[in-house]
């Protein structure tokens, strides 16, 4: 598909605005800086607590919600989406290119932060490396699910950022931790399930089964892509006389 590359290019340039990029870099630097302080204080034997509480719970969804909602949402808000839509391109390619960029940037920002945080916290021992890599792989998969879900949300509502933050902070942060059945509707729980299966189990927590976790990630990602494609296929411009 010859349009895929230019679509990726224009989405990348749109998402890499100076202020947004700076904000994202500061956000992912937060757990790394904290881990550095822990290291200066002698380190900890297990990094999974910090990786869960700081990265999976806060940094990963925040980065994904900003990038995922901006990929399509900013084009819709400022009206430039029209230039992409009035082209002989199947809408799924537009969605795939934007999802590719937002997920790719989420992974590129979060995964190095996960590895650095893990290794700074608990050193270069084999268990520590294994935990860091398990969380890195889980965050990569979780990042794909989060960013495509938020991208789809931005094609449904102009308040995607607020709703995305509410989902992250209220649903995942409070409700999904308290009520057993709601864990199946949580990308964070799926991310933790994958991390645990790969060797990054957090002591004292009962994660979701690995199969269920992967199914959640796949269903969320494919469902979000389908919703976004459907929404863009029926997209109608706003305003005008």
């Amino acid at each position: 598909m010859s349009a895929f590359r230019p679509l990726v290019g224009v989405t990348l340039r749109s998402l890499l605005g100076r202020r947004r990029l700076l904000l994202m870099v500061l956000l992912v630097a937060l757990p790394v800086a904290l881990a550095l302080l822990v290291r200066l204080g002698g380190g900890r034997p297990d990094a999974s607590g910090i990786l869960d509480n700081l990265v999976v719970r806060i940094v990963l969804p925040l980065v994904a919600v900003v990038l995922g909602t901006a990929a399509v949402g900013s084009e819709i808000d400022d009206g430039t989406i029209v230039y992409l839509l009035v082209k002989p391109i199947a809408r799924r390619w537009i969605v795939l290119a934007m999802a590719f960029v937002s997920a790719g940037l989420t992974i590129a920002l979060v995964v190095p932060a996960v590895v650095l945080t893990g290794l700074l916290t608990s050193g270069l021992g084999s268990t520590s490396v294994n935990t860091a890599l398990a969380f890195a792989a889980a965050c990569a998969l979780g990042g794909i699910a989060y960013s495509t879900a938020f991208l789809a949300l931005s094609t449904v509502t102009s308040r995607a950022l607020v709703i995305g933050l509410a989902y992250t902070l209220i649903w995942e942060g409070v409700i999904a931790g308290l009520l057993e059945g709601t864990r199946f509707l949580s990308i964070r729980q799926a991310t933790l399930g994958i991390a645990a299966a790969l060797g990054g189990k957090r002591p004292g927590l009962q994660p979701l089964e690995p199969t269920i976790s992967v199914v959640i990630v796949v269903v969320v990602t494919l469902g979000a892509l389908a919703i976004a494609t459907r929404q863009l296929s029926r997209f109608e411009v706003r305003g005008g006389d």
Partner: protein
Amino acid sequence: MSQPVVPAWAAAEPASPAAPPVAVPALQLDHVSRWYGNVVAINDVSFALGAGVTGLLGPNGAGKSTLLHMMAGLLQPSAGQVLIRGRSAWRQPEIYRDIGLVPEKEVVHPYLSGYGFALLNAQLQGVPDPPAAAARAIETVDLADAAHRPTGTYSKGMRQRAKIAGALVHEPSILLLDEPFNGMDPRQRLHMMDLLRSMAADGRTILFSSHILEEVERLADSILVVHAGRLAAAGDYRSIRRLMTDRPHTFTIRSSDDRRLAATLIADPAVFGADLTGGRLSVSTNDYAAFTRALPRLAAATGITLHEVAPTNDSLESVFSYLVRR
């Protein structure tokens, strides 16, 4: 259901490399309506367009952008259908090989240069040599000097030209432009008018919207007049212009003797009514030219001094209202 209005100028298309040899009109609206909840934005509009420049004229809020968005497949008609060379415009990305759209919103990706924007459009259109097509389009709209500056630094007129370059890269046979001359200086405006005329001469269908009569007058061979969501008139520019001029006009007149002037004017065949209520003389005529010639002559002949003669309903809005009512 009645057939859509197909003016004579839409029926024949000259043979051209830009227009495929098909009998169907390039662009056709068949009893199209669009409503938002209880608000009717477009009400049962039908017409067909062939090659040439057509002006879509109407006051702000008349529904011009709604019509153009439906033609560009960016709005679904609530009733009726919009056809591009016989194919539905809604949810058919393939129609964009035939269409170039210049939307009214002036925003362009601010981080792209004018050339970058044209190149993006060329790449997304899948033209064989995107850089050459982009350079050609930039040259065509006279933007070469600023081609490599970010569009965020452009003036309104330059952004307008960048948008037009983006719409021209694939040399579409149908070009839809929403208020394309907004923000352009007179020289750019003339250049753009020449460009659109030459594209129409190549057999392309050009439809541009405007709320300024003079713009339409200078460029369009034919016009569509839209008012309050309805098609008020469609056809050859001159005949519509004549309708606009020959409609009933009312003048308010202040003179040295209003009563005697009223009695004199009512005897003139160009006048069909005179009213003296409220201490003002209002005179109605259905022959604008004859009346404006007769008034000073009759006043002079009867020794009456004219202090003020003012048309009371000469706004473009009132012209459009009249065209809808007739």
